[in-house]
């Protein structure tokens, strides 16, 4: 799989080798990971695993027996996918500068996002639209970034959902620092509800030094932080096997805190494991690393062309493991949701898409003059001077018209 691992003997045509391997093996076997809702929609009652040397039973954190909850998880994932499709369409139509699709990762994002409590605080990278949804961020607000009218989009303090961070892994340290602040708040006011942060990053970002330093700090200070790595198999064109030979969850062992690999396409397992991890963190027992094993079913961004680096076959392998499909199968087969429910959802998604479109079209760019005020909190003579020059300059054009 690895495009860069040094061949032991001589150079080989990797694509051929890869195709051959897949052809030989049939469906790639699923790796070892926690799962309750199998791709075929069958729900197992049990969810336990050995974590850091002792067996942990995640079942108490499972919400698999509450039909309303299951339906609401499905609803989130369904709307999210529609949001993704509509945003992709808006980009294709030139209404967005870029779009970062998440299709395939709904289970990992909704599962983990729904595990958060109000007082917890999430640090996303740039693809966590699903987590945003669970934190109450208006989906339209997310598109402001991709329309190029802001680098932010929502008030993080209000949503307890931080702004997207584009420099990979940088936010993992912010999450640890924020968690250290929560610890201190808790100590000075024990009446506060225990809280934790969750730091999202990808398989690619896991190689950055900042991820390491954040784990070192988190372990050193027992910071209440959950590291949530969505291993979607790809960092743009580079397979996760270039970043690591072993499950990323195992990194945690080296720092002395628990690491768990969960089926990222199983929203229920993700939710349960994340709940457990957050409780672990909140209760003063320190950080946890979760690796959600999933797949980026679309391109990296709308600017990307996956045919350059991966086989359509790879993509097809993953289709049957779709996080929505398996929950739908389960809901239908167990009679937990009827046709009205699914039709209602389709209707709701249609409205969402229309609202989204209207919202995007209504977005207007900011005024550059206003941006001067956002560089510093306190007065700054250079910024004031440059703003004045800019105003004078613009006014000059208003008088003269442009010259060229």
């Amino acid at each position, binding site marked *: 799989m690895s*495009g*860069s691992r*040094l*061949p032991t003997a001589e*150079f080989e045509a*990797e694509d051929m080798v890869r195709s051959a391997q897949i052809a030989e093996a049939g469906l790639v076997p699923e790796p070892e990971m926690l799962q309750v809702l199998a791709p075929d929609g069958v729900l197992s009652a049990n969810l336990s695993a050995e974590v850091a040397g002792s067996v942990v039973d995640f079942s108490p954190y499972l919400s698999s027996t509450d039909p309303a909850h299951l339906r609401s998880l499905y609803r989130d994932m369904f709307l999210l996918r529609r949001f993704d499709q509509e945003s992709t369409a808006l980009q294709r139509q030139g209404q967005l*500068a*870029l779009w970062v699709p998440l299709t395939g990762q709904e289970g990992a994002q909704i599962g983990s996002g729904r595990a958060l409590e109000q007082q917890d605080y999430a640090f996303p990278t740039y693809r966590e639209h699903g987590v945003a949804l669970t934190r109450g961020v208006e989906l339209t607000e997310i598109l402001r*970034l991709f*329309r*190029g*009218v*802001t*680098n932010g989009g929502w008030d993080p303090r209000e949503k307890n959902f931080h702004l997207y961070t*584009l*420099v*990979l*892994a*940088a936010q993992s340290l912010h999450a640890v620092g924020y968690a250290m602040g929560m610890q201190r708040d808790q100590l000075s006011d024990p009446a506060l509800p225990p809280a934790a942060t969750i730091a999202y990053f990808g398989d*690619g*970002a*896991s*190689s*950055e*030094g*900042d991820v390491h330093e954040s784990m070192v700090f988190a372990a050193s200070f027992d910071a209440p932080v959950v590291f949530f790595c969505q291993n979607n198999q790809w*960092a*743009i*064109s*580079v397979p996760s096997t*270039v*970043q690591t030979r072993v499950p990323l969850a195992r990194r945690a062992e080296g720092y002395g805190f628990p690491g768990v690999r969960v089926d990222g396409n199983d929203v229920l397992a993700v939710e349960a494991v994340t709940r457990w991890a957050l409780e672990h963190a909140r209760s003063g027992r320190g950080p946890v690393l979760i690796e959600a094993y999933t797949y980026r079913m679309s391109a990296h961004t709308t*600017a990307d*062309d996956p045919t*350059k*680096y991966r086989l359509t076959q790879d993509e097809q392998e993953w289709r049957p493991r779709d996080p929505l499909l398996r929950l739908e199968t389960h809901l239908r087969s167990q009679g937990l949701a009827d046709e009205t429910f699914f039709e209602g959802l389709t209707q709701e998604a249609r409205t969402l898409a229309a609202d989204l479109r209207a919202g995007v079209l209504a977005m207007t*760019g*900011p*005024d*550059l003059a206003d*941006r*001067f005020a*956002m*560089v510093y909190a306190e007065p*700054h003579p*250079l*910024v004031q001077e*440059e703003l004045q020059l*800019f105003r004078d*300059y*613009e006014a*000059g*054009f208003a008088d003269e018209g*442009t*010259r*060229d």
Partner: protein
Amino acid sequence: MATMTIAKAINEGLRAALAQDPRTLLMGEDIGDLGGVYRVTDGLKKEFGALRVVDTPLAESGIIGTAIGLALRGYRPVCEIQFDGFVFPGLNQIPTQLAKLRTRSDGMLSAPVVIRIPYGGGIGSGEHHPESPEALFAHTAGLRIITPSNAQDAYWMIQQAITCEDPVIVFEPKRRYWLKGEVDTSAPAVDPFSAQVLRRGTDATVVAYGPLVPVALAAAAAAEEDGRSIEVIDLRSISPIDFDTVTESVARTGRLVVAHEAPTFGGIGGELAARISERAFLSLEAPVLRVGGFHMPYPVARVEEHYLPDIDRILEALDRAFAY
């Protein structure tokens, strides 16, 4: 002679370097099968194999740090940093290791590492993708910094960077990647560390580099309509700076405007202003004026056209220079 884009010219330059010297190798994120997000390395992995065109793990310090190690072993690594803003996670290795290795070893060791950085704005992108951090590297002794503005230079300068015994950072003007030009692959290359006068003029000099060279040329053309003869210099090398060429020009014209996309404050224009003011003090009819970015993080795409130095901003600075 062939017509090609700047991106293609760099691609051809890299291909030539890989073919010529088996010690040359490319390293970076997504430079293999994908050919880089700008396709600058397109086809090179297929042609030279995964040992010569290496998709690295996603870690910039790792890329530059291992490149230094490879260079110590005699290789000629050419690193691609995916976007200007992503050089920062790898920044430690540049000033503290790469730039100092030669001095540290009393001249015994060199680390001929090339770092390619697509830079500059105007592409409608988000944060960290449209920046111009060249001044941060220029201040560091031990590095060389060059930036081509046309296909001919792009083809040759990348090869010259690779054969140079010193570490070289090549800033590639990403919004000009698709700018076409004639490339003479047989022409003897001019010194990559020299500036070039692209247009002769008598009334004022405009110095620009990388993405702003076409803008400066357009401004000079517009000024000509107003009866002003503007000399345009493509700086090409940011470290060292070819002060001789600029001084000689300003001694004739008496006026200098320096344009770059990077914020004016602390930018390389200050260095030019200081040094040319010193060298040509008695010839200057007006202070050296600078056209650059404002002191703010590069703004969101929707307003970048108001932020980026354009023809009008250069003309306005020329007007001010003429007003003295």
